[in-house]
């Protein structure tokens, strides 16, 4: 889940990283008061969960409190990329000597967090990496072992930063790395990290993304920030297809049959089991298949729920067939899922043998499940067929049908 800038700044501040004396408000008159308190030029920044604020006019500069109020009135009414602002951030216009970049992201390939540091900040780090690769330092670190100052020092020094700046930056980078792990972030970024004329450093902007599943671990922080349980803060609004998936999953308390994400392919997926859904999705793509969706099924869902999910996927425009695949299951009954997906086909007037490209769920009650699949002529595979091979068979079948 993403945080607004004003929330991200608060998170950074709580981690002990210096921030400017900013203020957040939803009221233009209050913006004037904040600007008066700041006693100097200010920046009025729209608070939306979207990039492109500057280009859209969502960032304005003011020399006086009156000007700040006038800008605030305009920015509060300005829609940016389909979003109305949550409020505005009134920030002192900092007297900057140099802008730096520091970010921590999760590297899914290395399965570790990675610090990225650059003495060239204020612009996209991707652009810096392309144009000045020697100015970007990277260093993976453990999310289990304690983070050491030397790790921060290494990554900063690798970009040529030395002396007093290096010494002042080490605690900031260290605190950001610790914040990333402790708060279950997937992204913790300060850009720009400003070096002021007096030689001190201050976070001038921050972006934070928290792992959705970790929200329960950070209830106090979210409550302090005023983030409601109903706020999903996803990168985009869910599609009607995805909302329908949520309805299926909330049908009853038994198991999971949801977490649906929409794609535009022709092979519908009913997949899951302990990370199996991600493996299977990738496997389908690796074999040249085009998934119509991602989803997760497991934990022994009811027949109704399995049926509901399969019906949703089968009815998605452009779906030719579905593949029903899981890794070996112990807590989900094969026969129950088999009943669900076959029932979905029957209720939609479809032939299960034709619509189900493959059923590969080995595990609990598989003999019973295979008996059901035999009855309806559905091709199935047991555990002797790998997930990748099952995905390959589904892709071959759908490509054969399209040819």
């Amino acid at each position, binding site marked *: 889940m993403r945080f607004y800038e004003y929330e991200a700044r608060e998170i950074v501040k709580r981690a002990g990283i210096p921030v400017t004396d900013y203020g957040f408000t939803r009221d233009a008159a209050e913006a004037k008061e904040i600007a008066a308190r700041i006693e100097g030029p200010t920046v009025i920044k729209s608070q939306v969960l979207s990039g492109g604020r500057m280009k859209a006019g969502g960032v304005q500069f003011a020399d006086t409190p009156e000007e700040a109020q006038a800008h605030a009135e305009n920015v509060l009414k300005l829609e940016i990329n389909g979003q109305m602002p949550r409020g505005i951030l009134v920030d002192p216009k900092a007297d900057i000597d140099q802008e730096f970049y520091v970010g921590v992201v999760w590297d899914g390939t290395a399965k570790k967090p990675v610090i990225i540091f650059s003495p060239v900040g204020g612009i996209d780090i991707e652009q810096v990496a392309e144009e000045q690769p020697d100015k970007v330092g990277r260093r993976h670190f453990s999310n289990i072992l304690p983070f050491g100052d030397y790790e921060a020092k290494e990554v900063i020094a690798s970009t040529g930063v030395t002396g007093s700046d290096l010494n002042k930056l080490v605690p900031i980078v260290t605190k950001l790395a610790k914040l990333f792990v402790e708060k279950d972030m997937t992204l913790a970024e300060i850009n720009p990290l400003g070096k002021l004329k007096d030689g001190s450093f201050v976070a001038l902007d921050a972006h934070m993304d928290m792992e959705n599943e970790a929200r329960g671990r950070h209830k106090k922080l979210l409550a302090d920030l005023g983030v409601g349980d109903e706020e999903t803060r996803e990168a985009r609004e869910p599609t009607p297809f995805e909302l329908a998936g949520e309805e299926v999953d909330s049908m009853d308390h038994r198991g999971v049959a949801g977490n649906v994400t929409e794609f535009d392919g022709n092979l519908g997926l009913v997949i899951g089991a302990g990370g199996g859904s991600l493996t299977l999705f990738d496997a389908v793509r690796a074999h040249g298949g085009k998934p119509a969706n991602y989803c997760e099924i497991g934990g022994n869902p009811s*027949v109704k729920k399995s049926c509901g999910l399969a019906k949703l996927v089968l009815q998605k425009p452009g779906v030719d067939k579905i593949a029903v695949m899981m890794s070996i299951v112990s807590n989900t009954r094969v026969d*129950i899922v088999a*009943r669900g997906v*076959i*029932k979905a086909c029957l209720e939609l007037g479809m032939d299960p043998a034709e619509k189900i490209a493959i059923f590969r769920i080995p595990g609990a009650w598989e003999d019973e499940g295979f008996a*059901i699949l035999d009855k309806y002529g559905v091709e199935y595979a047991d555990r002797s067929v790998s997930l990748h091979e099952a995905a390959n068979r589904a892709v071959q079948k759908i490509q054969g049908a399209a040819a």
Partner: protein
Amino acid sequence: MDGVFISVEVSGDVASDPAVGAKLEEVCPVSIFKGTDAGVEIVAENLDECVLCGLCQDAAPGKVTVTKLYSGETL
């Protein structure tokens, strides 16, 4: 009564016994039985949820028949 995959029959004398109906409703984990003043009703929409646990047959020995329609096997 038949679902798509499962058929459940309750013999006549038990079907009209409210005490047995209440017991069947209590033991079935997927709510196939509903106890009534007149005995027991079978909830058609839940038939295919049957997990073949046999608890109904333990509650009313010899009086409940569960059939797997996909194989013809009767429990």
